[in-house]
């Protein structure tokens, strides 16, 4: 417990993995493919949140928000990027046992994902 004292919440972002940084940079609206995660009655909510945190490097609040969106709405767009990037994410999600598909971003069906990441209002620690 005491080992983490030196690292306050403000250092969180700089200590995240490489995947985290690159994925977050991809959430620009002009990139044309979406990674969609679908709900199923088997995967644990804690596990889905863990996957979002550990693989994408999302903070806990964002990971939980996306996880709940999957649970309640049946699906959620959890990442954007080029076709190759989201396909790579899809394989990784299938490796974790999550049900992921890739789709072209049409602009119309954003599955409630519009300005999703901004909703946390920059709350920290």
């Amino acid at each position, binding site marked *: *417990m005491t*080992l*983490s004292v030196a*690292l306050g919440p403000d250092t*969180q972002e700089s*200590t*995240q993995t490489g995947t985290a940084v690159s994925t977050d940079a991809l959430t620009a609206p002009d990139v044309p493919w979406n990674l*969609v995660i679908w709900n199923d*009655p*088997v*995967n*644990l909510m*804690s*596990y889905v*949140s*863990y996957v979002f*945190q*550990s693989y994408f490097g999302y903070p806990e609040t964002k990971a939980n928000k996306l996880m709940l969106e999957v649970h309640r709405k049946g699906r959620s767009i959890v990442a954007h990027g080029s076709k190759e990037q989201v*396909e790579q994410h*899809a*394989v990784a999600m*299938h*490796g*974790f*046992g999550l*049900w*992921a*598909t*890739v*789709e072209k971003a049409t602009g119309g069906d954003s599955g409630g994902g519009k300005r999703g990441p901004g909703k946390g209002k920059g709350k920290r620690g």
Partner: protein
Amino acid sequence: MAKAFKYGLKGISGFLEPAERELLRSLFADVISMLEPSDRGSEDPLAAMIGLDMEVREPSDRALRRLLPNAVKDDAAASLEFRQLTERSLRESKIGALRAAALGLDKDELVLTPADARHWSTALNDVRLVLAERLDIRDEADADHVHQMQDWSQAEDVESYLALVYNFTTWLQESLVQAMLQSLDKRA
């Protein structure tokens, strides 16, 4: 009785009775045998070497289809193309995690490194996905129904036995994931 995984100074540790180890060993082995590609003598060795599988088809078994799902919704052709490029390595990585978790069962005390924990969590998840298909869990109501089955003295048929096994692996995975989330917090 098994003890829940917990996160402490040594990392993530847990305890399982011999009978529980044996159960998990056979569950991991079952899923490995589902995932091992069928033997194809005529396969192009160069394609195999770079991970391509041009003979691949969407699995007919529902449980296997859940482990290796289509990556493009409502587009069989695009999903098949994706399978040709990725399914072989996906099968191999899943088998790798299941084998690693099974090997870990040989030791008396379960002390998991971060890599062990990742293998265990995906291996348990794949086992649960397969059991859930066998139990016909289609929605949250089905899951709740299965979840109510907690008493081993009630195990009278294959279905109730499977439900108990499913609930045991669910409990084990939940405790592992909680410990993994704690270890993420500590690293952040």
